[in-house]
C-alpha cells in the first residue's frame, strides 16, 4: 500500500500507450466467481475490497 501511495500521480500515460492496460486481465475489479465470492464471505471474518452482495450467506 505504501508503494502504491508513493507512486500516485507519478505518471501521465497518453491514451495511445494504454494498449496493455486494455487487456481483460488488467481489470481493476476482483476476478472472482460468484461461488468463490460466497465461500470467502463465509470463511473469512473480514470483508471489503470487492463488490458486496449483502447478507444472507446461506450458512448457519
Amino acid at each position, binding site marked *: *500500500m505504501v508503494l*502504491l*501511495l508513493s*507512486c*500516485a*500521480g*507519478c*505518471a*501521465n*500515460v*497518453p*491514451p495511445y*500507450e*494504454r*494498449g*496493455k*492496460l486494455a*487487456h*481483460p*486481465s*488488467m*481489470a*481493476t475489479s*476482483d*476476478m472472482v*466467481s*460468484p*461461488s*468463490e465470492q*460466497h*465461500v470467502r464471505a*463465509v*470463511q*473469512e*471474518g*473480514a*470483508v*471489503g*475490497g*470487492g463488490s*458486496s*452482495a*449483502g*447478507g*444472507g450467506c*446461506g*450458512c*448457519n
Partner: protein
Amino acid sequence: MLIVEAALAGSARAQDAPKTSSVDAHVGLDYGQYADTDHVFVETPSVSGTVSDPVKGWSVGGQYLVDVVSAASVDIVSTASRRWTEVRQEGELRASYKPKTLGAQASATVSDEPDYLSLSAGGAITQDLADKNVTWLLGYAYGHDVAGRSGTPFSVFSRTIDRSAFTGTLTLVLDPSTIASLVGDVILENGDQSKPYRYVPLFAPGTQVPRGAPIDLVNSLRVSARPLEQLPLSRSRYALTARLAHRYHLATLRLEERAYGDSWLMFGTTTDARLLFDLGQRVELGPHLRVHAQKAVDFWQRAYVYGPGFQYPALRTGDRELGPLVNATAGGTLRIGIGGDANPTSWVLGFDLNATTTEYLDDLYVTDRISAIGGVSLEADL
C-alpha cells in the same frame, strides 16, 4: 459436451454476422461446487448478463444465482440436530451511465432463503481526472436484513439488521503496463446478528478444555445449561485494500492486499496473488494463491465459564469465523477461447479449482478444515 458444441455453433454464427451498432451484449453461465471436511456441500449455479454501449457510456446488467447448501457439520452434530439442506436465491440488477468523464452507478440486490431475507441498494459517482490517469469513485449502499428461524414466520420471530456501507476508490495508471487501485470501506451494522440456532457450551470456572476437544469430551465437561449465542448489537467494520495489476509481454500479475479491523477488535490481513499466462491466442492459465489471517474478536473464548450466581457471559459465540484462524488457498483458472478466428475470446470456456486449508487456532471440536471449490463457466460476447 453438448454445451461446448452449442457454444461453438453459436460462436461461429456470431462471427459471421456483421456488427451494425455500438451496443454490446455479454452473457455468462457459471456452475460452482464446494465441499469440505466438515461435511458441508454447496452447489451454486448462476447466470449473468450485461448490455452496454461503450460509445454512449451506458450499461445495464443483472445476475441470478442459487445456492443449494447441504450440511452435517460438527456444530450441527454437537446439538444433536439432523443434516439439513437449504436453498438460497439471489438476484442483482445494476446500471451505470458515464457519457464523458463523470458517471453514476446504481445497483440493487435481493437474497432470500427460508430463514433470512436480505435487501440492499446503493449508488456511486465516479470521475476520470488527469486525462483518465486517475479515477475516483464514492459509493453508498444501504442494506436491510431480516433473520428468523426456518419454519417459523417472520411475524412470529425475526430480527432485523441494518447496514450502511461507504466505499471510496482511487484508481491510478502508474505506467503503460501497470494500474493500481486503493479501496476504502466503512460498513456500519446495527441489529442482533446472533444466530438463533447456535448454542454455546458453558463450563464451570477452572475447567480445562483443550483446543479441538471432541464432542464427547465437551459434553462430559460442560454444564447442562447451554445458552444461545449473543453478539454485540452493533459493529463498525473498516477495510483498506490495495490492488495492483502489471501486464508483461504474455502474462499479467495481479496482487491484492487487504487490511481489516472492526469495533469487535477483530483484525485481519488478506494477501491474494494471481499470475495469468497467455498460452497462445486461445488459452490462459492462471495459478492463484491467497492467505488470510485474523485475530479473534475481543469477547472470543474457547470455553465460556459461568459467573457468580450462575450468570451467563453477556457476550458469547461459537462462530469459528469470529475466532483466530489462518486460511491458505492454492489453485488456479483455465480459460479457453472458443470463438471464431477473428475473435477467439468472444466465447470463453472457463474452469477454476481452489483448495483451502484453515487452521483454527483456539476452537472447540475442530483444529483444521480442508475445503475445495471448483467451477465451470461459459462467457460470450454477442
